[in-house]
């Protein structure tokens, strides 16, 4: 065996949201250092939320992420409503879920087709893919547009929707506005099913991870807008106990905080975790499609997350259709929310995993403190762990192939570095 020194540098990891860097040092057959560095310039949201009115965090925190603004709005609303002792009417909750379906479809389709699929097909981008498979890319864009259209109709626009407020909405959509979405959504449901079949034909590297899978769980739904925090190892806690079980640590190489399960365990949020925790809550159509695509009741291979995202896209289309078919215009667009002194917690399922907000309010409703735990920060430790295994198990690969595999392993998590971070510079050094 040769004890070789190789230095692999990759200027920038692309097809992720935001910018960061990865540094790997290999000494012979040992990985001596491995860090996913997050360079996203700090934007200090938690600091400047202090002193704002309790009505403001949904709009302000939406600006943390242009790809999942609804997730921020929904977690913020839930936390503030909880602090004020308010529960929204069921029809308003259903409308929130519909808006969220739009974001899931838009975000998942973006990742599946534009960011992730090119890895499996040896293309540099979806635009490159379009040269040979124009029909596939056209399907992707039309499907993505359906998600954006839901957000336009329910939220006013797809990036930073304007219609969400603490207590509900400013104006609820009319029945005819929503029915106008149905034809495209029925097409979208078929296209999502096609998507599940399409991605299931890809070749997936072997990798089974043992991380604890953590997701919201709801008594009857595939949890999105609310639920209890559950895991595949029996965790079952209310949302307001989140910080009793999970903690964040600030490490030197990242502007995102690393989250851990108290007691030291590594955990995972996002599609794999949701699927594994909530497989029995998927609509029948999505469960069957998953089985046909070769997924069992749990999925522990991050490379297969693209299949899970497709299954979730199908579930979101199906859910949206049901919500619109059952829609009756709510009697009021919002429940009145009077401020009071207290603390509130909110967790919803952002496309990339559970997103936690906590606000402390004074008696006039001014924000005294805010804590936000985005999904990518929670997954950072798991991503580093996967990278380490990918490197160790594939030392025989040529440098360029190993680099590529590392990038793919990062993209498996659809890391939203904007939520926490800048560009991913992959450096692999071999000594």
């Amino acid at each position, binding site marked *: 065996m040769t004890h070789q020194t190789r230095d692999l540098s990759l200027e920038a990891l692309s097809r992720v949201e935001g910018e960061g860097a990865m540094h790997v040092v290999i000494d012979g057959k040992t990985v001596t250092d491995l860090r996913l560095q997050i360079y996203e310039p700090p934007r200090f949201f938690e600091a*400047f939320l202090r002193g704002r009115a309790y009505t403001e965090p949904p709009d302000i925190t939406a600006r943390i992420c*242009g790809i999942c603004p609804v997730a921020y709005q929904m977690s913020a609303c839930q936390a503030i409503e909880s602090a004020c002792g308010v529960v929204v009417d069921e029809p308003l909750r259903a409308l929130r879920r519909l808006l969220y379906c739009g974001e899931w479809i838009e975000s998942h389709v973006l990742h599946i087709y534009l960011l992730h699929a090119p890895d499996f097909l040896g293309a*540099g*981008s979806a*635009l490159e893919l*379009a040269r040979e498979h124009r029909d596939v890319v056209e399907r992707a864009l039309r499907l993505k547009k359906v998600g954006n259209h839901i957000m336009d109709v329910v939220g006013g626009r797809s*990036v*930073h929707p304007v219609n969400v407020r603490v207590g509900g909405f400013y104006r609820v959509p009319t029945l005819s506005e929503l029915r106008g979405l149905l034809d495209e959504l029925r097409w979208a449901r078929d296209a999502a099913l096609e998507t599940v079949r399409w991605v299931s034909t890809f070749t997936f590297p072997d990798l089974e991870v043992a991380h604890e899978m953590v997701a919201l769980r709801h008594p009857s739904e595939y949890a999105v807008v609310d639920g209890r925090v559950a895991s595949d190892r029996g965790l079952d806690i209310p949302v307001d106990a989140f910080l009793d079980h999970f903690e964040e640590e600030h490490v030197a190489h990242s502007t995102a905080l690393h989250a851990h399960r108290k007691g030291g365990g590594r955990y995972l949020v996002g599609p794999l975790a949701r699927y594994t925790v909530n497989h029995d809550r998927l609509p029948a159509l999505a469960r069957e499609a998953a089985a046909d695509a070769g997924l069992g009741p749990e999925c522990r291979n991050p490379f297969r997350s693209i299949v899970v995202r497709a299954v979730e896209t199908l579930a979101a289309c199906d859910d949206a259709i049901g919500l619109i078919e059952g829609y009756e215009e709510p009697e009021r667009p919002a429940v009145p929310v009077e401020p009071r002194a207290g603390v509130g917690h909110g967790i919803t399922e952002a496309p990339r995993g559970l997103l936690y907000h906590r606000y402390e309010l004074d008696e006039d409703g001014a924000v005294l403190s805010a804590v936000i735990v985005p999904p990518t920060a929670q997954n950072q430790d798991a991503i580093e762990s996967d990278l380490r295994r990918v490197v160790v198990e594939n030392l025989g690969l040529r440098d360029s192939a190993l680099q590529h595999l590392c990038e793919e392993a990062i993209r498996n998590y659809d890391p939203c570095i904007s939520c926490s971070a800048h560009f991913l510079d992959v450096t692999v050094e071999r000594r």
Partner: protein
Amino acid sequence: MQSTRRPKLAVWKFGSCDGCQLSLLNCEDELLTLAGAVEIAYFLEASTAVTEGPYDLSLVEGSVTTPHDAERIQEVRATSRHLVAIGACATAGGIQALRNLADVGEMTRTVYAHPDYISTLESSTPIAAHVPVDFELRGCPVSRHQLLEVVSAFLAGRKPLVPAYSVCQECKRRGNVCVTVAHGTPCLGPVTQAGCGAICPSFHRGCYGCFGPTETPNTAALSDVLRSCGMSGPELVRIFRTYNTGAPAFAAASAAAEKRGGPR
């Protein structure tokens, strides 16, 4: 197939949420046409393929908030024939420009356990504070229709057709009932630049100024109207201190409201 060289388009990110560059990918009906008309030479969020500069048109998202980014924007300018700043971060410093009014050291200690790991500037500044900018497209986020118009205009060598008038004009054209006149809802429409399509009033909500100040905004007169709608002094300060807090007209309006005070 192409006998003439296609113009090279680059998309750059600075401190931001990614929402403005996502707006380009949200042009679902036009994206493939656009990709045929230009060479997407640098767009890391969408493509691994990178072509060396210089670029004919650079779209720049985000504000400058770190020493590294202050250097990087110089490099981007040097390699770009035309540079267009897109969105409230790039044109006014964004919501993160709220730090300009605060003690950044204290903010860092609030958010991070080890402030010494964090490298950041005292202020968040727009691209034009660092390099010459050929056009500024407003909005938090930008309108995808306006974004396409700007790209088309630069490709055709003409001035972008982006009106500088207020949201009120769009709102009237949309046939909305004025939320302030009819319902007494505070609305920044009269002092905010058009471009969004007057979405908020269409949803029975007052405009919150995410496209920044219009040309010659009369914020003093509007502030009196907002107070008569029941807005308190601190609320008035805050409504001008959001996504375009660094835009001079909004900064002046919030400072004036702060100076005048008023009941909470």
